[in-house]
């Protein structure tokens, strides 16, 4: 163990440098572990969550009219190979003592279940009893309402105030999706589950239901159950059956890109730590040259010396990795919570740690060993002078090749049509950076001399003296800046593209979703104060058989007479109405996302389940839409009804009078229809919802990158300290011949600023290149976003990069100014 003891003592001799190396390993390991573990956990948890939340049931039986007879359910409820539950939903208003609450915030959807304790809904009881025939609410709702088991809730229905006791509180589930606060209740209604007869009684709907959900007892029986149900709906008029399908790819469309961005940010962490380790090892080995020489003269072989240094590296690496894993575990947790929150996923699933552990431990041990390779090689060399000479010759020969390889890397990124291009580009930048840095410092020279006189002149010379070290320091900051330029620009470009598309294809200022629309409703809406125009449309999720797989395709029934006024999609040429009018009975229009999912060509056909069985529809056009986050198909109203048999409509599009505020419009419409309204969504809600998700996702990536930028500030400080340490005498001599304190401080600050300026300018240039490259393929909902640069964002990032470089130069600069002349000038 003596070997380790010596290593430990050597490390403790240079506490500051050891600490910096250790920190960089900790950061590298933590960011790798955190990102991988969080992403792996999310990747595992999301599909499970979706399956649990949206489709616990396997099949749904619905009616072609708003309601159908409960007798249908009674006929099937004796079956043994599946469980089923009949449902009836009604909208009503909560009676609450909460103050300053608008009627919109009191909306409640009450769902009556023929059975509350069933695997079909899978309610997980936290308190109370599902069999107690009272109301069931989620823990989230209970918290906002402040309700306990045994409390009563009252509802203001059209048939008077109805009251029921709360008998169970269950874990939050999509079936009882509700807002997380009174404020969020402006956008989403509350949800309460009660026994079916309660709803039927309260709303005078005895013997009526609106859906039956079915779950097979065992997975193997799915096909048999489907056959039975098929048979069942054929022998019962007015009902049809659909399998419950989750479109995972559409539910979390941009998730993979987001995860990739997180990975890249994590990768920056590793690159950063490699750099700092290399730098500080390199210097400490240089520092200890005479020590090594002495050891050699007393008989140490080069191999033994290298072993000694390697032991030190390993020691730092092991401790750093262990600390990094601890920090990383915390980071993973935080990141997981954030990701789940942003995507609205509720899950208590355990963390997936294995891959993250393996990768980050490997990185934590291998990266330090690899980056110490070159410095350790130098330990073996004897003569100081030789080492210096060799070093120079090898470096220039090497970097020429590295430069060429770097250019190749950069060029290769032009041909990669995927965000992964960031990796070769970053590697390429790193390799060509010394050249760019030289070029930059050449330009900087004139500028510095002109503006900063003496300090600027000396600073630029010093930068050029250790150009390798300076450019290594600069490149890390530069990579961070390039990344953040890309990410922030993508963020705002995505937001703008989405906002534009949503407004263009929302079909008006408000979409009101009723339980079902009665004939006279449209006229009533049109006469509400603030309503300029209104139209109703049909929307139904239709089963789409795609390559033997079932998917859910939202299909819109569109009227040619109103579609131009209420555009639900945009077309590249001609009018929407002309397109709709031209559609034959077996023709359909796909939007860009479903078109991309399908992968076919215009003129080919897709297969949909209709009330007449499977039927093919010819795809005659592709249009753009962001309606309901953009995924769907369009048909003419008439064809829609003939094929899908849904005879009632639920949605109304409203165009408001110019001076009417969106919120007032909602209040006006709600006060007219009250409980019959299920949802009201405006384009602004979608913009803020989608915008929130996008911005939060980007913020996480940006936070990681910003962390990297700040740490690269530590890198700058480290490099400057090393420079100063090497030039103590020079600085002292300058002070001796009359260079002032301030001039020395200015000199060091300008050195750090030069590194930062080079990093910022070059980083921004590559950032813009990255934006350009991604704009050639990146799609916002299958729409490529336009290449554009926000100078505002660039300016903020530039200021940030420069601020980091100046701030991290302050400590070294004051240290340089404090050098004791009498000590430094003493001749040893």
């Amino acid at each position, binding site marked *: 163990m003596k070997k380790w003891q010596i290593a430990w003592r050597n490390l403790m001799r240079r506490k500051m440098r050891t600490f910096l190396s250790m920190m960089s390993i900790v950061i590298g390991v933590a960011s790798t572990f955190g990102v991988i573990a969080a992403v792996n956990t999310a990747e595992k948890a999301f599909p499970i969550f979706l399956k649990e939340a949206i489709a616990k049931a396997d099949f749904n039986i619905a009616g072609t009219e708003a309601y159908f007879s409960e007798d249908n359910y009674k006929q099937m409820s004796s079956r043994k190979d599946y469980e089923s539950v009949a449902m009836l939903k009604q909208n009503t208003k909560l009676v609450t003592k909460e103050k300053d609450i608008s009627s919109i915030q009191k909306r409640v959807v009450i769902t009556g279940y023929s059975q509350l304790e069933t695997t079909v809904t899978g309610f997980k009881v936290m308190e109370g009893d599902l069999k107690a025939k009272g109301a069931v609410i989620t823990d989230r709702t209970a918290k906002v309402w402040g309700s306990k088991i045994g409390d009563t809730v009252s509802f203001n229905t059209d048939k008077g105030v109805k009251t029921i006791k709360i008998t169970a509180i269950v874990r939050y589930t999509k079936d009882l999706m509700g807002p997380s606060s009174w404020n969020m209740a402006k956008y989403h209604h509350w949800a309460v589950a009660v026994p079916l007869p309660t709803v039927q009684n309260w709303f005078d709907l005895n013997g009526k239901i609106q859906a039956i959900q079915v779950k097979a007892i065992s997975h193997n029986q799915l096909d048999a159950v489907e056959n039975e149900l098929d048979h069942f709906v054929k022998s019962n008029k007015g009902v049809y059956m659909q399998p419950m399908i989750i479109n995972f790819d559409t539910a979390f469309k941009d998730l993979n890109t987001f995860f990739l961005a997180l990975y890249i940010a994590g990768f920056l962490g590793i690159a950063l730590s490699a750099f700092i380790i290399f730098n500080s090892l390199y210097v400490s080995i240089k520092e200890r040259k005479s020590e090594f020489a002495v050891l050699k003269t007393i008989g140490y072989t080069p191999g033994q010396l290298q072993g000694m240094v390697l032991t030190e590296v390993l020691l730092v690496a092991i401790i750093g990795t262990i600390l990094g894993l601890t920090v990383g575990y915390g980071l993973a947790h935080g990141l997981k919570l954030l990701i789940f929150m942003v995507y609205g996923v509720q899950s208590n699933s355990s963390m997936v740690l294995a891959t993250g552990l393996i990768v980050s431990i490997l990185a934590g041990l291998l990266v330090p060993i690899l980056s110490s390779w070159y410095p350790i090689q130098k330990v073996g060399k004897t003569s100081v002078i030789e080492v210096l000479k060799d070093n120079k010759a090898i470096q220039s020969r090497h970097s020429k090749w590295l430069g060429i390889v770097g250019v190749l890397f950069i060029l290769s990124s032009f041909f990669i049509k995927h965000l992964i291009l960031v990796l070769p580009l970053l590697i390429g930048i790193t390799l060509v950076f010394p050249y760019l840095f030289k070029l930059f410092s050449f330009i900087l020279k004139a500028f510095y001399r002109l503006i900063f*006189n*003496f300090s600027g*002149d*000396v600073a630029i*010379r*010093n930068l*050029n*003296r250790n150009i390798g070290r300076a450019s290594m320091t600069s490149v890390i900051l530069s990579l961070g800046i390039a990344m953040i330029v890309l990410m922030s620009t993508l963020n705002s470009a995505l937001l703008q593209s989405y906002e534009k598309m949503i407004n263009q294809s929302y079909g008006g200022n408000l979409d009101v979703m009723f339980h079902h629309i009665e004939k006279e409703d449209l006229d009533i809406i049109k006469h509400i104060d603030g309503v300029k125009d209104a139209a109703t449309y049909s929307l139904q999720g239709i089963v789409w058989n795609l390559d033997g797989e079932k998917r859910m395709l939202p299909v819109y029934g569109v009227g040619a007479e109103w579609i131009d006024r209420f555009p639900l999609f945009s077309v590249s040429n001609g009018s929407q109405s002309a397109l709709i009018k031209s559609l034959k009975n077996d023709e359909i229009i796909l939007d860009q996302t479903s078109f991309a999912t399908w992968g076919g060509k215009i003129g080919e056909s897709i297969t949909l389940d209709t009330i007449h069985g499977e039927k093919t529809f010819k795809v005659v056009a592709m249009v753009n839409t962001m309606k309901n986050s953009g995924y769907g198909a369009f048909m003419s109203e008439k064809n829609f009804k003939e094929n899908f048999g849904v005879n009632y409509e639920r949605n109304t599009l409203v165009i408001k009078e110019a001076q009417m505020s969106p919120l007032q419009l909602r209040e006006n419409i709600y006060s007219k229809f009250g409980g019959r309204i299920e949802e009201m969504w405006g384009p602004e809600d979608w913009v803020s919802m989608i915008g929130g998700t996008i911005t939060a996702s980007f913020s996480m990536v940006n936070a990681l990158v910003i962390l990297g930028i700040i740490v690269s500030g530590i890198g700058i400080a480290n490099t400057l300290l090393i420079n100063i340490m090497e030039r103590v*005498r*020079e600085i002292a*001599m*300058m*002070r*001796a*011949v*009359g*260079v*002032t*304190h301030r*001039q020395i401080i200015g000199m060091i600050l300008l050195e750090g600023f030069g590194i930062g300026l080079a990093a910022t300018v070059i980083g921004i240039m590559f950032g813009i290149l990255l934006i350009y490259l991604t704009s050639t393929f990146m799609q916002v909902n299958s729409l490529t976003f336009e290449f554009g640069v926000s100078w505002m964002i660039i300016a903020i990032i530039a200021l940030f990069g420069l601020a980091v470089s100046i701030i991290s130069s302050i400590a070294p600069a004051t240290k340089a100014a404090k050098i*004791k*002349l*009498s000590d430094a*000038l*003493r*001749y040893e």
Partner: protein
Amino acid sequence: MISVSNVSKVYALASGDFIALKETAMQVRKGEFVAIMGPSGSGKSTLLQLLGGLDQPTTGNIVVDGIDLTKLNEKERTLFRRKKVGFVFQNYQLLPMMTVGENIALSLTANNTPKNEINTIVQKLLSEVNLQDKESAFPSQLSGGQQQRVAIARALAMKPSLILADEPTGNLDQKNSEDILKLLSRLNKEEKITVVMVTHDQQAAQVADRIIVVRDGMIVEEGHKGGYRNEKVANRMA
């Protein structure tokens, strides 16, 4: 020119205080060439640094050209060094990334002297130290003697009234040493610059008007040019 009275310098060490100079007093007249000799570790460099305002004495006063150095703040001492003193070091201390011309101009650039003025001064100094053809050479391309001449030229740039040289010939061979000493001597005679030079070399000490011997932080002997004492002192030190 220089008046040192009652000066002590104490270094605080982990092992206790170390007294490098004890109650030292000395005078240097304007235009005088003084050599300081003494064994290693006796406090010669410490004394020189105090004279040049590189450090402050623990007690006592140092007055140079009527300026009491112990009353100056950091900034004033810097300007004092810039304007009044030229330093010459044993290991030359030239900046490797600057040319000979730029090294010579160092304190002028720090003083923001106009470019053309700097140029004339540098040309004059180059011819004074006989390095006209080396203006754009880098220090690494010069011999030790040449480098020391550059250092002397640098020390002269601000027309100082005092040159402080700490073993200026310590790294040089016989021939180069003689050149440097001649140069210092000429500056002393012709330009009337006061020179205080620390040296181990008795021959070097011979060019001085007076030799001061320091031992254990105290001035123990003084001798005058040509006088028996001076030679005896120098011989004994050698």
